């Protein structure tokens, strides 16, 4: 297959397995490009991309912007904090105003689930979802799988456990879709209060014992406790969470085999993982960040090639 089956990247849910493979193969080439002394290609010279962020972000925003610039696209940035959204402008109005300035693609992060899907139905531009509430974060899941593929050779057949706050995590949901699509085995692990009620309907097993989960897996993806989304108390104290679900070096060294540690960032050091785990040889956290740029270049390149 040489082109994506979709016009927008709204979620992993809408992708086919071949789309993921095409994105990975394209990302391989871009990874070579970003390791050259001159890390830029002229492909997207005549494409303008708006990054609109209605929610805070460091990594994702920088990664997208860098990916766009490495492809030679023109980039405009917008964050809701300093914008007319505060004055009561609607999402469609905001975006249509931006599009009137001849923008071809919109990369959007929004606190409401489905915001990207809604936008794709109302405006004429390619939409890339950079995180919509607790729904999906497709480029994160793609770069996570890409990093597993890079580290372990394949994703198919690997055992991956996602640990932490699954309920509020768009990273977890997108990862589940992506990993299942590629034939990996997925379990989730965390306090029962932070596991969505109907997770089994996705074919996902819940393991509440961390040590058992870690002994089962090849890869552990450690999620952050999203304090900003915890509207009620889901567990007694952070300290108790760490005791039950935090990974430290002693736990890691006590396992039957060497597992790979991932984290989508930002890390709360000492909560979900300790510093010596985050900085250990088994951790591929910084590889994930590097791969993020290559993956986003691939996604943008492939979507841009469908803009007529």
């Amino acid at each position, binding site marked *: 297959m040489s082109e994506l089956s979709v016009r927008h990247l709204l979620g992993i849910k809408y992708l086919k397995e071949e789309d993921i493979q095409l994105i990975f*193969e394209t990302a*391989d*080439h871009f990874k*070579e490009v970003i390791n050259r002394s001159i890390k830029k*290609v002229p492909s997207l010279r005549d494409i303008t991309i708006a990054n609109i962020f209605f929610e805070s972000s460091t990594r994702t925003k920088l990664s997208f912007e860098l990916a766009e610039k490495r492809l030679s696209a023109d980039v405009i940035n917008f964050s809701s904090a300093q914008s007319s959204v505060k004055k009561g402008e609607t999402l469609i109005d905001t975006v249509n105003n931006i599009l009137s300035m001849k923008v071809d693609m919109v990369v959007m992060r929004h606190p409401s689930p489905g915001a990207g899907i809604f936008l794709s139905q109302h405006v004429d531009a390619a939409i890339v979802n950079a995180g919509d509430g607790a729904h999906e974060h497709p480029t994160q899941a793609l770069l996570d799988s890409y990093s597993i593929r890079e580290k372990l050779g394949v994703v198919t057949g690997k055992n991956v456990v996602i640990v932490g706050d699954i309920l509020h995590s768009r990273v977890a949901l997108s990862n589940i879709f992506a990993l299942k699509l590629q034939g990996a085995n997925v379990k989730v692990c965390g306090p029962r209060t932070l596991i969505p009620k109907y997770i089994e309907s996705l074919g996902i097993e819940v393991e509440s014992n961390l040590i058992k989960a870690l002994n089962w897996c090849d890869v552990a993806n450690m999620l952050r406790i999203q304090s900003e989304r915890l509207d009620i108390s889901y567990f007694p104290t952070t300290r108790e969470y760490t005791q039950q679900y935090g990974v430290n070096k002693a736990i890691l060294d006590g396992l039957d085999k060497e597992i790979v540690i991932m984290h989508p960032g930002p890390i709360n050091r000492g909560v979900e993982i300790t510093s010596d785990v985050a900085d250990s040889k088994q951790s591929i956290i910084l590889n994930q960040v590097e791969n993020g740029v290559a993956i986003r270049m691939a996604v943008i390149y492939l979507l841009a*090639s469908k803009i007529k």
Partner: protein
Amino acid sequence: MLSSKEINIILHRLACQLLEHHLDFTETALIGMQPRGIFLAQRLSKILKEDYGVRQINLGLLDITFYRDDFRRGEKTLEASSTKIDFLVEGKKVVLIDDVLYTGRSIRAALTAIQSFGRPKEIELLTLIDRRFSRHLPIQPNYRGRQVDAINEEKVKVMWKENDGKDIIYLVSK
């Protein structure tokens, strides 16, 4: 158009011409262009090493997909191949190698692409087949295998033993 025997004679001639200009190849880089120029580059490198005693050749593969000027202009997404240049081209004499020279647009893209790997001392072009009267850009080869006059409706197909089973060149109507 050309049989395996004729191709072999031409390859040896091209190798000798390269040798005449580059002598020991220490300051030279042969760059095969993806996807079809790499077979020619690999073959020439093999001949130079085995038949003419050249010890070491800097051989690289260059993919020009991201430098092409027809992005979004066709129906299909342009699919990339891999680039593998594990030496510096800075200060080297670069020879771009492709099987067929037609409009010259690929070479234009390659001239831009190669700059991402440094500033070469000079750049030359070697093509096995040079299609006359079809150029869109002022680009001519320094070394050519065979010059042909083909109309736009025709296509030159270069087949290689490594990839297609045997060495042969066809002129086919599209």
